[in-house]
């Protein structure tokens, strides 16, 4: 393209090379080094006067050096009288810090947006921002491209029974991303949520139900014993239809059996208590979406229902004065730690809570909503950084939901620490699908047989071309129909 220069940051020479190849150009000449004291040195070795300049930079393990390099490159091009400078950031750094997560925490993503502006950027091209609200942080236009059409096409071409698959979100915050892919492929979707407290005690119906349980307990317990003795259900299968599922929201996993065997008298009273909306839902909704499966997560792994945990096993009795019931009530009235952002925020990522997944003292309750039995499951999020929540979700859908195959799908393959090795080692994960928005070290990729990397260079090249010629970007958001 005439009058265009594409510079590559030191983080992603390979991706930039491909982008340039697609456009029939070569990357522009720049020397990127460091002075001996650690300051970044940039030398632009070709004239940029009155040129349309694109600077491509992704993330790297030395993320702050990468950012400074980008800013200095932009500043150097601006000082060299470039007519327009566009930053092409396939992975936008600090995008997870896009809100105040704690009192007096920084909104670093906004600051970075301002820094890019002050360095001299006139346009941003990026891919799958962690929160699309971030576009509002910029004063200049932002093209937030989507990798979803590429992912959907790969699924159509490479997954044999994709029409029977289920798309699953591994945390409540990412559900929107998941429904979008599910809509594109016309698939069912499900959700896995991890709760720090045991059980999902924060719903009114289950609270009321606990009290009824207490009243009717003698009968229920006798029946449980009888049923359990007669037919020992396999511990793995606790999938239940909706009426039982509401009853299953009880302080502990083992009481699921008693819920299943509740007398029909109680079952009818349950639906009566749940009110109209519950029953109304059932009429016009896919029954499968109501399937609720629960599992216990200890040390970051799914454990059988009869797994002994020292501190909580005492609470398995369902007495009327059950302390767990009380604590549920209090947790219901005192909303939990969402005071700053709200847990329903689209930008919420379970990655931040990863550390606690590993804490042996904290036991988690994993809830799977939706039926995945004998189906292929696509677990989808925007980035893979830490492995914990992916492994937990995969184990839940395989061990509890009895899923056939699991694909972990994300745009940005950040792969912090030994994440890729852990995912590769997890028996419940069959494939990992990512893009090359974030550079993956070659030796790492070579050892990961499950890894599939989609190439974003066509998307980025097309976005650059269209930007240069002033054409519309919107066709790039559309799904490829074959």
């Amino acid at each position, binding site marked *: 393209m005439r009058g265009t220069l594409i510079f590559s940051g030191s983080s992603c020479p390979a991706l930039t090379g491909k982008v340039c190849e697609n456009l029939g150009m070569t990357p522009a000449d720049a020397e990127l080094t460091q002075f001996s004291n*650690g300051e970044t040195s940039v030398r632009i070795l070709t004239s940029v006067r009155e040129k349309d300049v694109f600077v491509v930079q992704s993330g790297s393990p030395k*993320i702050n050096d990468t950012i400074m390099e980008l800013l*200095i490159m932009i500043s150097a091009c601006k000082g060299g009288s470039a007519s327009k400078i566009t930053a092409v950031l396939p992975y936008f750094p600090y995008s997870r*810090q896009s809100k105040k997560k704690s009192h007096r925490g920084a909104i670093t993503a906004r600051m970075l947006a301002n820094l890019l502006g002050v360095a001299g950027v006139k346009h941003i091209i990026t891919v799958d921002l962690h929160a699309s609200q971030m576009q509002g942080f910029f004063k200049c236009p932002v093209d937030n491209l989507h990798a979803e059409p590429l992912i959907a096409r790969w699924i159509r071409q490479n997954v044999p029974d994709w029409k029977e698959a289920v798309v699953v979100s591994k945390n409540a915050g990412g559900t929107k991303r998941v429904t979008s892919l599910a809509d594109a492929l016309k698939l069912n979707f499900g959700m896995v949520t991890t709760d720090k407290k045991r059980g999902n005690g924060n719903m009114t119906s289950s609270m009321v139900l606990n009290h009824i349980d207490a009243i009717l307990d003698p009968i229920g317990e006798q029946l449980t014993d009888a049923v359990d003795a007669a037919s020992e259900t396999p511990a793995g299968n606790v999938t239940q239809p909706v009426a039982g599922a509401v009853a299953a929201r009880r302080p502990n996993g083992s009481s699921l059996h008693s819920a299943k065997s509740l007398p029909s008298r109680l079952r009818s009273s349950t639906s009566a208590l749940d009110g109209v909306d519950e029953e109304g839902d059932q009429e016009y909704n896919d029954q499968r979406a109501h399937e609720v499966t629960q599992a216990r997560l200890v040390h970051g792994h799914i454990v059988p229902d009869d797994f002994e945990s020292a501190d909580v096993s005492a609470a398995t009795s369902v007495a009327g004065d059950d302390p767990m019931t009380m604590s549920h009530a209090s947790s219901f009235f005192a909303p939990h730690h969402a005071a700053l952002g709200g847990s329903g925020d689209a930008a919420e990522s379970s990655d931040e809570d990863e550390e606690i997944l590993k804490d042996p003292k904290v036991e988690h309750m994993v809830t799977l909503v939706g039926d995945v039995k004998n189906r292929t499951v696509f677990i989808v999020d925007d980035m893979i950084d*830490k492995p914990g929540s992916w492994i937990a979700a995969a184990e839940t859908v395989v061990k509890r939901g009895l899923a056939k195959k699991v694909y972990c799908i994300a745009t940005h393959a950040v792969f912090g620490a030994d994440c890729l090795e852990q995912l590769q080692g997890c028996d419940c994960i069959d494939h990992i699908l990512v893009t090359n928005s974030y550079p993956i070290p070659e030796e790492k990729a070579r050892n990961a047989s499950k890894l599939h990397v989609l190439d974003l260079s066509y998307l980025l090249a097309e976005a650059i071309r269209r930007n240069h010629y002033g054409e519309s970007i919107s066709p790039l958001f559309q799904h490829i129909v074959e």
Partner: protein
Amino acid sequence: MSGEMANEIKLISGRSHPELSEKVAKRLGIEVARTISLNYSNQETSFTVGESVRDEDVFIIQSTATGDVNEGLMELLIAISACRTASARRITAVIPNFPYARQDKKDKSRAPISARLVANMLQTAGANHIVTVDLHASQIQGFFSVPVDNLYAEPSFLRYIRENYKAEDCVIVSPDAGGAKRATSIADHLNTGFALIHKERPRPNVVGRMVLVGNVEDKIAILVDDMADTCGTLCKAASVLKENGAKAVLALVTHGILSGNAIENLNNSVLEALICTNTVPLGDKLERCPKIRVIDISPTIAEAIRRTHNGESVSYLFNHAPV
């Protein structure tokens, strides 16, 4: 400082130079504010202020550790941004060693003026005031549209020379033409002689030929500069001075950056001592090089913070070093 004042000094320290922050805090009789600063697994920096800074006068001390300049700079920017969003009344960035100060001009085609970029970045993050020590070029103050207090280590140097040497035995030497002004100023205050070394510098951190202008015979030659990086210049200058009959050669610098093979250069050189301030964290370099001596700059910084907070004049510090 009276307890009734609604608005007090909050001293926040970055991770690059906690020792200096502690010394400044001790001097001011306050505690360094509680903060949480960490790197995520993908090396992104996260900074949280652990106590309220609402309507307070915030001073953030962050030097730039050698080799970790960008890390320190980003942490500083994030800390400023965190205080800004937390409704601090005024945020002063105390940057004893201003990063990228040497990239302050477009000396080649399309060379970035990174010092101006850093200035703009600090203001964008939300800094209202800058305190720094011995800027490489005073013009950098003009890159900012907020006030910049450029403190001088010179009063501390003068006191050090007077306390340790006889002024009349000394001659002050500038290792390059650009530093002549700095050296003559010290020579004037001490009423001693002055000399200059002219050098040709083909590339940064590479030293060319050197010529001495002036007389250093039988004198203690004191090389004065604003920073000692790889020490190639200083060591070569020292041997030139020795060849020209100097009794002993000392180097007096503000910022002991000491990157690359600076320690080996120093240990192998004829330099008797390198005297620097503690604007830059020195780490284990003091153990690895017995020639390094340190002047504590924290009283000057602490006094500048106190005066800035109370709205007093800072100019007193340009000529006097607090004891």
